[in-house]
């Protein structure tokens, strides 16, 4: 793509855009300003911090993988298939976006808890309990974060030119081959953007996690839970933990962006 001379941002866009940046960034500035920089070293040296951070990164990444494996096909069904009740299905998929996460956590109990619809047979026959385990953290995060991925990918699929898929079909490719060889590469930036959104949401997940997975250092205490509990005891420690979580998540996102979206950032939905 050749560069045209930059005509600048029109004023009616520039002013609200600057306001939006201020609105989004100022709270972050507040955290940075109030952070007890002198005691940040000892705060970070606490073993619980590394433990919680590691758990957060692992569970959020697992939740993103599960969301990709299940969510991309779901997005395809919503965007491309002609099954009846698609709009109802789409509304149902977005329920976790509207549901307060704590309620989501209770709902997960009612299904997967040891008295739940599926959880009771699991517990009684196989002795498996899901709540209060790291698995429960991944499930809670997936429940809350997957809709972000599904909606992103569905949007990308709808925006993608279906004629490429039609052409593949005329050339004799079946729908699965078409999906794999044509559709997936076509919407890859959309999938990447959705995955990033999903990962970020999973990383910040609090309500469903603390309800369904509980809070125990090492197994279920993710960074947001550690931040919340630190706030009960020592607000300055909570600020430090929040900044750590922010720095790590921003760093990861920037790194991934350079690697995955670097060349494609000028085009498509991911930009």
């Amino acid at each position: 793509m050749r560069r045209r001379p930059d005509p600048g941002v029109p004023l009616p866009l520039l002013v609200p855009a600057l306001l939006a940046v201020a609105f989004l960034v100022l709270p972050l500035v507040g955290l940075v300003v109030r952070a007890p920089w002198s005691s940040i070293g000892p705060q970070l040296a606490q073993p619980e911090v590394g433990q919680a951070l590691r758990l957060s990164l692992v569970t959020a990444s697992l939740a993103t993988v599960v969301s990709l494996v299940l969510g991309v096909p779901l997005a395809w069904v919503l965007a491309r298939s002609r099954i009846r009740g698609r709009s109802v299905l789409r509304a149902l998929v977005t329920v976790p976006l509207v549901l307060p996460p704590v309620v989501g956590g209770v709902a997960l109990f009612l299904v997967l808890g040891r008295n739940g619809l599926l959880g009771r047979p699991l517990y009684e026959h196989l002795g498996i309990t899901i709540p209060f385990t790291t698995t429960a953290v991944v499930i809670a995060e997936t429940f809350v974060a997957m809709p972000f991925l599904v909606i992103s990918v569905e949007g990308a699929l709808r925006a993608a030119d279906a004629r490429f898929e039609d052409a593949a079909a005329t050339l004799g490719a079946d729908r699965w081959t078409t999906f794999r060889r044509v559709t997936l590469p076509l919407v890859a930036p959309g999938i990447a953007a959705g995955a990033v959104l999903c990962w970020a949401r999973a990383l910040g997940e609090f309500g469903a996690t603390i309800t369904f997975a509980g809070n125990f250092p090492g197994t279920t205490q993710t960074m947001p839970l550690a931040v919340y509990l630190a706030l009960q005891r020592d607000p300055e420690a909570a600020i430090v933990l929040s900044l750590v979580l922010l720095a790590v998540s921003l760093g990861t996102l920037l790194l991934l962006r350079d690697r995955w979206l670097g060349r494609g950032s000028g085009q498509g939905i991911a930009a």
Partner: protein
Amino acid sequence: MRKSRALLVLPVVAAVGLTACGGPASGTAAGTASSSSSAGGDLSGTLTVFAAASLTDVFGDLGDQLMAENPDLDVQFNFAGSSALATQLTQGAPADVFASANEKQMTVVTDAGLQAADPAVFTENVLEIAVPKGNPGNVTGLADFGDADLTLAVCAADVPCGAAAAAVFADAGITAQPDTEEEDVKAALTKVQLGEVDAALVYATDVQAAGSDVEGIPFPEAEQEVNDYPICVLKAAPNAAAGQAFVDLVQSDAGQQALADAGFRAPTS
């Protein structure tokens, strides 16, 4: 400063007919209260009460009562863990009354100089073991919290119920084996109500409030860690008159009876 505030609220105190932040009202004073407050309706505006989560039901009822007596008054509650409330208050959250589930978080507020008058202890609460109906884990006493095979919930040590639990365990020489450290006492109780844990360490009042889904098991070690509940009107109260009226209502015979019905104990100190 403190004196002038006391003078400001004096007419209301007289109208409700009770003593200020000092302690539970005497029977005669309460008698005056019921007769004069029936004339009521002097208070107006919005009353904002920050109260420990364990007070949700009792204070909700007392708030309704105050609103019924004062049709122009709207009582708003912010129920949460005492430490979260103390943080909100020191960060400048507007409130008229603060009721804490322990002295420590009240001290956070008084250290910041936010109180209008010295806080008064208005009730007490003790820990109790909550088990799901039928006690599926066969929990009998505090010692069962050392059993790693049971699914157990306690409050996180950062919140008052968790601090009390830790102290009780330490006194009894028990190494607790919880599966989850809950962010507040209601969250711990919810997991008992859902039957997802075999036992949780909560307050006697929480067991009372949970109804038939939950059974309570009192244990003698709990007497080591009795929680005092202090209350006070705040200096920056937008509606100090209504705030004082609420504090007085809590300390009146009617308020103390409501607290007792909910499983609280009268203050002994």
